[in-house]
């Protein structure tokens, strides 16, 4: 692990133009992505484009719902939402398709809510493993604050909780040029390298991603 991170840092230094790829999230029909990594997803309107459903490589947490068309008679149906699920998975450099089985009766909807029959597939069609939990809000359901609910969810010990999403991370200052004058270079580069390596391993996924972005865009 240490070697790979050293290599990564070295690569960043030598090839500053290397792009750190994201993962893209694609919901299938009937699936709504409500939040990604603690941030609520804005709703697409007829006059605005669909917000980019993207996350950095690594651990990703999404909030999802499925809206089923429940058959009421031979020629009518009503819409019913599934419970609100939190899915946490790991992926890198791929498109993650979020799928749910087609549901048209209450029996299947109850079963879905009980078993979380979600399927996450990468761009090669391979299933991704995930952990899951549910976001539950007591009271009026209109205008739910998913960001606040996720903060509470991520402070629990639920399997799908990602505690680091609640941790404040450092924002690397992109306005400061990273190419410092030679006089600022520390004479003990071995120690600098060790410290970089040490602190990188102490960083959360989000801080690492911020750091990578800073390297990418700051040079």
């Amino acid at each position: 692990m240490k070697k790979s991170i050293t290599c990564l840092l070295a690569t960043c230094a030598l090839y500053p133009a290397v792009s750190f790829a994201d993962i893209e999230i694609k919901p299938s029909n009937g699936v709504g992505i409500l939040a990604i990594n603690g941030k609520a997803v804005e709703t697409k309107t007829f006059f605005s484009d669909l917000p980019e459903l993207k996350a950095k490589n690594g651990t990703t947490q999404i909030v999802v719902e499925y809206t089923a068309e429940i058959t009421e008679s031979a020629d009518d149906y009503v819409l019913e939402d599934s419970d609100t699920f939190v899915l946490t998975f790991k992926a890198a450099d791929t498109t993650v398709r979020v799928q749910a089985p087609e549901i048209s009766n209450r029996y299947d909807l109850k079963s879905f809510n009980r078993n979380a029959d979600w399927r996450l597939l990468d761009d090669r069609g391979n299933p991704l493993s995930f952990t899951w939990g549910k976001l539950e809000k007591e009271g009026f359901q209109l205008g739910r604050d998913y960001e606040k609910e996720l903060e509470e969810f991520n402070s629990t010990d639920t399997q799908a909780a990602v505690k680091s999403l609640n941790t404040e991370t450092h924002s690397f200052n992109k306005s400061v040029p990273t190419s410092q004058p030679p006089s600022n270079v520390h004479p003990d580069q071995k120690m600098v390298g060790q410290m970089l390596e040490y602190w990188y391993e102490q960083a959360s996924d989000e801080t690492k991603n911020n750091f990578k972005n800073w390297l990418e865009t700051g040079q």
Partner: protein
Amino acid sequence: MKKLLLAVAVSVAAGSASAATIYEGKGLTYTLNGDLQIQFRKEVGKDEHTDIEFDDLELKNHVSYDLGNDMTAFGRIDFGFKNAADGKYDDGSNLEEAYLGMSFGNTSISFGKQNFASDEFGIEEAYEMESKNDRFDAMGTSGDDTIRLDVELANAYIVASYEMDAEGEASENGEYFDLFASTEFNNITLAAAYQNATESIGAEDFDTWGVSAAYDAGFATFAIDYSTTDDVADQYNVASVFAVAPTTKMAIGVIDTDFDSINKEDFTEWYANVTYKFPTQKNVSLFAEIADTDQSNSDMGYLAGMRLKF
């Protein structure tokens, strides 16, 4: 059998839709659904004129209480406003369904003003038709003194209902006993229904039977049903639904009605419709349809409309 529609449900970019759960807490859930549809329509027939009609202008209220141990108490009140909007009567709204019930796991029993079991039957995919949907639709599929039992299983759905005649009471009308069963396997859905109907107290009773089958071939769904009322009429439907674009689907169908009485003219009706769902909101759709019959002195009908559901 709505699965015929769902099987080719058009995909949308956002993929999201939403029902309106208004309140959820301490075991209580209150959901409000709406179905608003308006049509610019000229009916099939002779000397028909174009007008604006409402078909489905409903607000559906559903309340349930979780009683624990997989038991739920539920109630439903649906108001329909289409007749009021079409100027057919003046009292504002029409109570379409009103019932209370209990569910135990996957079995529920309900009492009140609701649809019969045979209302589940049928595969037709038209927006509007000159014909009845099927023989059950012709005989009656809803009542106000109805006891209904629903059992939902993994691959089967069974419904039974009984409408009391309520002799001497304000709600006095006919007596109906209905059964419906359907099952799904390997992309095939099979269903059967039965009804014994006595349309008013002391009147002759009629038996109606029906069977249907639908096959989801992936690129399209094909379906057929046949229903018959003893000594009255036979009817069959053939329909197919297929996607013509990522947001657009098309349905075509034929209905043939064959009356036992020589005084009624047998006829065949066909229809073709197209439905576009907005990529941003799958609950908003635009549609258009043409239809005609082989009856004498009948002109083709057409409609175009818009539908919003929530």
